[in-house]
């Protein structure tokens, strides 16, 4: 992959005004080299510092001048030493001259690679650009920049400038800073250069593309407005997610002293017959089965190829439409960019005319795209205009993929205006919310926008590469915490302004939030009951009913308490979500009654117990469970001696509470005349 090999010279300002931000620059640069170590091991890096006390560079030795510029490391293939060099940059004492430093960097690249134009060459300047560059011996500064620019262009060197915004040392220097920015902007006239302004450590870490991915076109060909009018375009990805690296699986089976062990694990897949267990089916005997509902339809690949949908490679216009017809949330995927075919002036003009007309009229175009021949599907996308910000870059389009009818689920939600008054904010609450939205402003006028996606690094990847490097040095090291400068991404700013704080306080005061006691409990219980699976799943089950369908759902009774046993009992008996409840209710009621009798002192619980027994009796008749009641009454009889229940049974007979008879419930085997005799009979038996 030598084609993609990159030689990069980091040109870093280490002057006094940079000292505050240097730790973050060190982090950025080490991250850059670490990623190179992982993904492009053959890349080369050189380091130039300026603003240093001492001077050490070839140009000074050869022609003189170029003071306070130090070549910390010549251009060489990345290694640990490079990382170590960048980890602790020396602090300088002078106000640096970035033009001198750029020239030194250019000189290194030219000397190293000469006229051969192999690979990519890049200069990366990191400075606060607030100190004036010195007047050149001849001509003006602008001329000098031009000369350097020409040189860069002829050698194909790219320039990335990261201008760090720091507090200006003295207000007089504002002019110098503006002049410097102008000078840097001038580079972009004839070179590929880019200036990025960063305002703090968070965006600094995201400012530099730390991994080079050479762009590949998704499609090269015609954008067909109609069969007669076509525009030649190239399509690239504009966004593509950088994934967490896939690590290999480690095997510790290899002998310890085997130096050449790969320690890799391979995964083998075997397809086995379910009936004839253990019999492996060879690949040629396998056929793909496609599901259609519960049916599985076997189709061989050849058959499938013959019938499947196969559109022609093309990008066709369906029409234009008002951009308001397309909602932002309908964008489905990562984004493409359409650029006119490089070098084709006609295409550049055609795209430019369309882009500007679309922007003016607030229109978007709908396209049907098939990127490759043989692709099995089509994409419907929305093309939106992108007016180029730089003079030397052509206008282009962005394309976002839109959903098909099958991809959209149109659920309906209650209108906010129809919500009950208790769920709608009152005026004070609305005002507090308005103020909060106004005050928590990430893009205040006149300042750089905060947390711009373009400048926000991925905290997970940052942390992974940090961990990786740390572990490569110290295999047993603890995982590092998330870098402090990245905390701004994952949570609110910790040192916010006091006036903002009061808005937040006000909002907190106005919006009263409290736990819903009933629901809290039920969720927790559901969690406990669920033996496996994630918490989310369990919670989802409990809340699966939408709240407008759920109605006033009370907490279901699952136990008979002592405070209101009769009510609990009735509710449990009334539950229909399982037959076990009736049984459970009867059992618990029996226990309750027995408990009452057992703990009765001089019959003080008898009345309660009788009431409960009546309820139990009635329920048992209703539920056709006479045996349960009768057995219980027999059981009480048997124990009447131990519990001294003579008075209780007298009470029962006075209230005419008997065994459940056959006339009351068909399942009962107690005859009418026997029912009443029970306690008496028992008494007789016990007396005998």
């Amino acid at each position, binding site marked *: 992959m030598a084609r993609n090999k990159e030689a990069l010279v980091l040109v870093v300002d280490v002057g006094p005004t940079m000292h505050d931000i240097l730790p973050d620059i060190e982090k950025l640069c080490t991250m850059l080299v670490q990623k190179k170590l992982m993904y492009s091991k053959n890349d080369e890096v050189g380091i130039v510092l300026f603003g240093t006390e001492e001077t050490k560079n070839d140009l000074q030795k050869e022609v003189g001048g170029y003071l306070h510029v130090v070549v910390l490391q010549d251009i060489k293939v990345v290694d640990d030493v490079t990382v170590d060099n960048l980890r602790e940059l020396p602090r300088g004492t002078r106000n640096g001259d970035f033009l001198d430093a750029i020239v030194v960097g250019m000189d290194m690249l030219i000397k190293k690679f000469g006229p051969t134009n192999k690979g990519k060459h890049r200069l990366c300047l990191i400075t606060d650009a607030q100190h004036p560059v010195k007047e050149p011996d001849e001509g003006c500064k602008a001329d000098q920049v031009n000369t350097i620019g020409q040189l860069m262009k002829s050698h194909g060197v790219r320039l990335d400038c990261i201008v760090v915004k720091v507090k200006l040392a003295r207000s007089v220097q504002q002019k110098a800073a503006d002049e410097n920015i102008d000078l840097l902007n001038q580079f972009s006239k004839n070179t590929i250069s880019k200036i990025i302004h960063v305002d703090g450590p968070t965006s600094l870490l995201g400012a530099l593309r730390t991994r080079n991915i050479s762009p590949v076109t998704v499609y090269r060909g015609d954008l067909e407005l109609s069969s007669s009018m076509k525009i030649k375009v190239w399509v690239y990805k504009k966004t593509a997610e950088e994934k967490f690296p896939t690590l290999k699986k480690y095997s510790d089976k290899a002998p310890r002293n085997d130096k050449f062990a790969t320690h890799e694990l391979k995964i083998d897949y075997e397809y086995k017959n379910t009936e004839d267990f253990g019999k492996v089916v060879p690949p040629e005997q396998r056929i793909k089965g496609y599901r259609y509902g519960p049916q599985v339809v076997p189709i061989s690949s050849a058959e499938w190829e013959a019938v499947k949908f196969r559109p022609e490679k093309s990008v066709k216009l369906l029409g234009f439409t008002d951009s308001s017809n397309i909602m932002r949330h309908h964008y489905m995927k990562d984004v493409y960019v359409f650029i006119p075919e490089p070098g084709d002036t006609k295409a550049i003009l055609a795209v430019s005319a369309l882009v500007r007309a679309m922007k003016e009229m607030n229109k978007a175009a709908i396209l049907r795209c098939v990127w490759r021949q043989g692709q099995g599907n089509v994409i419907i996308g929305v093309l939106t205009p992108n007016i180029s910000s730089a003079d030397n870059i052509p206008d282009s389009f962005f394309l976002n993929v839109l959903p098909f009818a099958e991809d959209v689920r149109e659920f309906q939600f209650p209108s906010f205006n129809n919500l009950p008054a208790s769920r709608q904010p009152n005026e004070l609450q609305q005002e507090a919310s308005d103020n909060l939205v106004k005050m928590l402003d990430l893009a205040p006028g006149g300042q750089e926008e905060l947390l711009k996606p373009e400048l*926000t690094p991925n905290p997970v990847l940052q942390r992974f590469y940090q961990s990786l490097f740390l572990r490569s040095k110290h295999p047993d090291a603890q995982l590092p915490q998330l870098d402090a400068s990245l905390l701004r991404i994952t949570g609110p700013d910790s040192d916010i302004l006091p006036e903002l704080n009061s808005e937040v306080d006000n909002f907190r005061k106005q919006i009263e939030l409290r736990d819903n006691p009933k629901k809290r409990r039920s969720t927790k219980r559901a969690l406990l009951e669920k033996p496996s699976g994630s918490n989310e799943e369990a919670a989802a089950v409990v809340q699966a009913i939408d709240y407008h369908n759920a109605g006033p759902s009370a907490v279901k009774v699952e136990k008979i308490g002592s405070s209101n046993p009769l009510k609990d009992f009735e509710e449990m008996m009334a539950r229909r979500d399982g037959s076990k409840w009736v049984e459970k209710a009867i059992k618990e009621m029996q226990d309750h009654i027995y408990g009452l009798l057992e703990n009765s002192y001089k019959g003080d619980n008898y009345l309660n117990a009788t009431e409960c027994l009546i309820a139990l009796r009635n329920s048992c008749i209703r539920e056709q469970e006479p045996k349960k009641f009768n057995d219980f009454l027999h059981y009480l009889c048997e124990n009447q001696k131990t519990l001294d229940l003579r008075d209780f049974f007298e009470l029962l007979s006075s209230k005419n509470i008997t065994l459940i008879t056959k006339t009351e419930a068909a399942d009962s085997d107690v005859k009418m005349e026997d029912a009443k005799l029970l306690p008496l009979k028992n008494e007789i038996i016990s007396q005998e």
Partner: protein
Amino acid sequence: MDLDPDGIFRDDSGSEDDLLREKESTKDFSVYLVDASPKMFGTVATNEVDEMGETFFHAAVKCISESLKAQIIGRSSDEIAICFFNTREKKNTQDLHGVYVFNVAERELLDRPTARLIKEFSGIENSFIHHIGSRYWIEPASRENSLYNALWVAQALLRKGSVKNVSKRILIFTNEDNPFRSISGAAKADMIRTSLQRAKDAQELGISIELLPLSSKEFDVSIFYADLLGLEGGEMPLFLTSADEKLEDMANQLQKRIFSKRKVKTIMFVIASGVSIEVNAYALIRPSVPGAIMWLDSVTNLPLKMERTFVCADTGALVEQPRMHFQEFNGEMVKFTVEELAEIKKVSDGHLHLLGFKPLDCLKDYHNLRPSTFIYPTDEEIIGSTCAFVALHRSMVRLQRFAVAFYGSSTHPQLVALVAQDEIISSSGQLEPPGMHMIYLPYSDDIRYPEELQIYAGTPRATDDQIKKASALLRRIDLKDFSVCQFSNPALQRHYGILQALALGEDEMPNVKDETLPDEEGMAKPGVVRAIEEFKFAVYGENHDQEEAAKKGSTTEASKKRKAIYEVALKESASYDWADIAEHGKLKDLTVIELKNYLTVHGLPVTGKKEVLISRILTHLGK
């Protein structure tokens, strides 16, 4: 077969985010209770007398069959039963009057929809009156309560499956808001009471009952159905469909409601320290893909079971699922345990943290990675959530701002934009629900700048005239009422069309229309053609087509070279009698260069070893 119940290995499968996929573990069991009373066969009142209006019954059948088709594609694990009530004939396990459970062969009463079911159900209208018939049972003479019977049958159908992982629903399609209007007195009170009790019993078993009213006039829920459904005062308005709707709209409305809302997850939304509310996340837009394939044994057509084994590459030994992973870095092997990798990804606590607000134009067109997620507040656990959410929503809509927040899920923490969406209602109902859309933002590493690859000192820009011509073109080719979901996916339609045909054993392959092709007719209109020609002339100049043709005609360097090689080869190979040489097995005596000449002339690949070349020549000669 869940290989990874803890989800620890989800990192291996890429971006499997929890919010991206709906939970497949929860299933829906639904019984469609379709009223088949004579009133349902009345036509929708239209002003035109001569036009034969469509019946309510037709609308119900149509929307059910449409949603069945959608369901077989989207959620084929859901089970359904279709049941008519107020029918002349009866067919149900309880043998109750006026209830007819519709089913087809090779299918249980409550089961996943099959190709046959959809086919036969779609065509049921023709034979309905003849075979099943319509009769209104609730009248003084009959003493039958068909609604009660229907609910009972439906409840019995839904007996299987535990409430824990199945959501059970009864959907009633009717245009009668007062089912007991013809009877009075004690009989009426009794029928209402028993019906309500039946509904209450069903609800206590965890079955939700929903009503999909069809009506040309106002459907008054409060007469009877509010009690049946257990609605509260505030919830009524959702059920009121406006009066003079077209049947088409009505069917659309029904279809939207036929699928139960499936929440993906409940998320804690931290607005500020001490102010946390709860929101439910819904996946309103997710790409539908053809279902997963299964491997079958081609001899028996029985499904095969896949087994995964881990083999140590060094020793060949079988090993357990590894807990240790490694990354080569700078020539070293850096090891991490599975837990450590999970720990690295855990940069936040799983909640949604508000970071601040930005004007809407800060959200660029290329700030997108994945389909968005819809969030709507819930007071289920934290009372006041809805109120706080609505307040923020209103402020954001009014001030034209979106919120930037960090969604710290454990597998895929990401910066998101929350865009407040105001409710959009049209005459046919809700088009866009109110709430916020969570849009996943790229990080700096995810954004590329291919447009900056090529730079030209004097990049041309379109002139005002060219822009004017382009504007004229835009006006000509205008899709006025474009809506994002007007096209169905031709690849998916074809996929399922083929499967449906094969599943039903039909020989004819369906011809699926590709709706995504441009409107050739419209493009050929003279006005459009003229606008295109004018624009073309403005940007390309006069003789564009000729120039293009000329460009195509002129040969490039590469093709010249190719031609030269071909001619040399032709000359060289002509001096051999190939058939004769091959016949005598003398091909191996020739040099590779000589062999290649033959191959070049006949347009065959010239790669490979000598034996390969010879065999290729022999094959070509037909030997």
